[in-house]
């Protein structure tokens, strides 16, 4: 019997009901993932008027030097950001994983803080800090008598810096995970042969973690070229374009969805290719030291140098968390942020205005959280169904469903949005301007996160427990409802939050799909930045963060208590 199941040919589910379930789930995945992408490709190859096959859209998209320049800018930006992130993340990751650097817990929490900050919010904080003349850092600098400011955030370098400061966490996480597996024996060997700690780290330890570092670097690169918010805030005033801001221009008058589609395809291809490289790198197991087997792991004593390393980590975290949040808090609580810190300038009015007076802003808060909750629920239900079928091999072709569920991971948010727009905004579905199109797009965008987490949770549960129900005469649905679901509740709540939180702040998808009544907070923030209204902008950013924190904090004990109860019952 067990053998039968493993072959993926379970006779008991080759029933009409099983076939129907497969069809239903396949149809949903087709609708959410396959069809929008197919439409994207189709639209890019069609004449918008006649529908005839043409390459004219590609010529229009890449026929002007300005448009090609935007692509180069994106690639250059991705490269510079990746280099910066390597410089930020590697020393700190090595310090945390391999040395006796102090304050490790603090560093980890702060990295999490940088990770959890929406990049566009961080960018606004940095506009307040490093605006060329009035930014706080430049004002301090001007006390030295300098006429020109020290930093100009409105530049290519400025943009690369603020993106890097919020995306180095990928590399940090990838690298620490790998470094923690390296055994000390190799380092000892290097030491015995006369190499100092630095030489050992550079020549032995880090090369051992190279596949993980390369994987992290690729993710950083791809995140950067797909980013919309920070470039819109920085690159427009700095007077250069990247792929994502250029895509938005194709949505300006006259709207050219077909050109936008054609322009987006290379972005998709680059992403696909690099993810292929990344999988190959991570999948290679040529590094014997990383088998995870045995080996003693000791922390390297750095002596006084450990304080230097800690200082570097602290500086980094000041730049990504402490300083920008201080600037945002000052603006959020100020009548006019330019007037600086004084009691007469202090007010809670921005918050009151946004929540109780400004109709549209209050609605955007509600929209963000309801859309995110709906999207998280849909993504999770779907992920659960696919994950269960794949894990228990209930149906033939189940692995294909799993593959399709993971596919949106390699689609940049902005490309997904354009694909959804092309597929579902116009009739017959006419989802344009409805909450549904946003919810479905969010659900699709974060489906891989949900799938990766739920399928891990399902795999952790031994099928024997369900088999017991079945032996006792319960159907599979009873087994799922009464056994599997309670066992997985904690894991599912965690997975739900992991989809919910990024969905509350998603910008690049929302930007192309919102309507007048479906503006989310992220879109609202961008609209407010158009008017340069930083006080209310900052306040709205804090509302977003505080609301997220409250939801996470209130969900945590719920998950925890559940967990406790289960133990008592056992």
């Amino acid at each position, binding site marked *: 019997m067990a053998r039968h199941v493993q072959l993926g040919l379970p006779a008991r589910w080759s029933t009409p009901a099983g076939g129907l379930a497969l069809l239903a789930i396949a149809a949903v995945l087709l609708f959410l993932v396959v069809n929008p992408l197919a439409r994207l490709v189709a639209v890019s190859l069609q004449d918008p008027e006649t529908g005839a096959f043409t390459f004219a859209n590609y010529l229009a998209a890449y026929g002007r030097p300005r448009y090609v320049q935007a692509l180069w800018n994106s690639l250059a930006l991705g490269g510079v950001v990746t280099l910066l992130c390597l410089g930020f993340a590697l020393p700190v990751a090595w310090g945390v994983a391999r040395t006796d650097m102090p304050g490790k817990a603090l560093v980890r929490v702060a990295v999490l803080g940088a990770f959890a900050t929406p990049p566009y919010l961080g960018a606004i904080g940095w506009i307040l800090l490093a605006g060329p003349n009035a930014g706080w850092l430049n004002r301090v600098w001007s006390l030295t008598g300098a006429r020109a400011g020290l930093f100009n955030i409105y530049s290519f370098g400025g943009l690369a810096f603020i993106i890097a400061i919020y995306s180095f966490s990928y590399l940090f996480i990838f690298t620490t995970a790998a470094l923690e597996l390296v055994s000390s024996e190799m380092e000892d060997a290097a030491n015995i042969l006369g190499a100092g700690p630095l030489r050992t780290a550079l020549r032995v330890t880090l090369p051992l973690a190279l596949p993980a570092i390369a994987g992290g670097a690729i993710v950083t690169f791809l995140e950067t070229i797909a980013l919309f918010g920070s470039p819109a805030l920085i690159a*427009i005033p700095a007077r250069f374009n990247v792929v994502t801001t250029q895509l938005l221009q194709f949505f300006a008058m006259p709207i050219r969805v077909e050109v936008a589609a054609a322009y987006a395809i290379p972005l998709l291809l680059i992403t696909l290719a690099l993810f292929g490289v990344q999988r190959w790198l991570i999948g290679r197991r040529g590094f014997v030291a990383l088998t995870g087997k045995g080996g003693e792991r000791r922390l390297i004593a750095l002596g006084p140098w450990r304080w230097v390393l800690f200082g570097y980590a602290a500086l980094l975290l000041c730049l990504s968390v402490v300083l920008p949040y201080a600037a945002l808090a000052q603006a959020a609580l100020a009548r006019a942020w330019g007037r600086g810190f004084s009691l007469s300038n202090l007010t809670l009015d921005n918050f009151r205005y946004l929540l109780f007076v400004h109709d549209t802003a209050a609605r955007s808060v509600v929209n963000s959280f309801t859309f995110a909750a709906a999207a998280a629920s849909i993504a999770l239900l779907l992920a659960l169904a696919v994950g269960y079928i794949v894990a228990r091999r209930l149906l033939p072709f189940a692995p294909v469903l799993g593959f399709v569920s993971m596919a949106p991971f390699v689609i940049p948010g902005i490309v997904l949005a354009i694909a959804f727009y092309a597929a579902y905004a116009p009739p017959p579905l*006419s989802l*344009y301007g409805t909450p549904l199109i946003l919810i479905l797009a969010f659900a699709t965008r974060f489906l891989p996160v949900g799938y990766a987490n739920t399928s891990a949770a399902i795999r952790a549960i031994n099928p024997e427990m369900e088999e017991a129900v079945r032996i006792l005469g319960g159907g599979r649905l009873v087994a799922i409802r009464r056994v599997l679901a309670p066992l997985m509740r904690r894991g599912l709540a965690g997975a739900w939050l992991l989809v919910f939180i990024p969905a509350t702040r998603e910008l690049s998808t929302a930007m192309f799909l919102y309507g007048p009544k479906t503006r989310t907070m992220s879109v609202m923030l961008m609209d407010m930045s158009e008017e340069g209204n930083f006080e209310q902008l900052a306040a709205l950013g804090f509302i977003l963060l505080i609301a997220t924190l409250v939801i996470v904090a209130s969900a945590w004990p719920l998950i925890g208590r559940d967990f406790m109860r289960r133990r008592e019952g056992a």
Partner: protein
Amino acid sequence: MPAPTRRSVTAGLGALAVAPLLPRLAKAEQATLAEAARKEGGLTWYVAQVDGETAENMARAFTQQFPGVKVSVMRTTGQVAYERLTQDLRNNAPQCDVFSTTDIAHMPALMKRNALARYAPENAQAIAPALKGLGEEGFYYPTTYTLFVILYNSQKLKPEEAPRAWTDLLDPKWKGRVAVAHPGFSGYMGVWTLAMRDLYKWDYFDKLARNNPRIGRSAVDPVTLLNAGEVLVGASTVSNGLLSASKGNPIGVQYPTDGSVVCIGPSGVLANAPHPNAARLFANWLLSPEFARIATRYYVFPARADSPAVPGAKPLDSVKLIRLTTAQIGKGVPEVIEQWRDTFS
């Protein structure tokens, strides 16, 4: 001339007889309109003519006057508002009831695709004579206007240090300290850009580019940068400048010697408006004495002839003005947006 038929004569006589009754009839009409609007519950207003906060305040004033008719405000720049509207139309998903743009050429373009409702607000007769010809009778009307002028940070510059003419913004001493909006976003900015091109050719912007201006999106943005001390001089509307100064910000207004650019803000009801009655009630209100009072309180010039003066603004007859026709704007603004993107990106 065709011979008068009996029907046309009767109609003419009828109109004559009814004329004295018009105000009373209008009042009754307004009451039924208000009642129908209340049943619809509210309307959506796409607006670019004022900043977000002012738009919300105006919307609240309307609801106070007509309880039960809520206005949901969608404030963004003129070009973005028009893009949204065009997408609504393309996807046959009407959202907008009243459209108040900053690029008057949007209106004839909308008429061409039959997107504007035929509606002649009763208050339209009160529009100032100078503005009367600017709308299209029965479709859209100017509801507000303002002037594009030079603004400066009055804390850091004395009035005599401020630029006097648009050409003064090209002075290298403002390098990195001059702010403008983006014609690809702001409608009024597009009108100003076109006016400058007419006066000085595109050369003006090639020179401006050398001064490395700070480019925002909305025309409100330069005011924010001035307040913060980020820049010292900028181009924006006199309304934005006076409103900000009234809040205690250090903003000075300079009417350029080579001409303040007149910016007309028209409004119209959409043909497929989801709330047709509320839309008409609101469109009529935009030309009412009540709106005129509120608009001037926020330093926006209302279209009515009998509007109170905008406090702190120079009388128009003492200012050198540059006017562009709707046809010029319709042809020229898309061109300057492209030129702008080539020069500044």
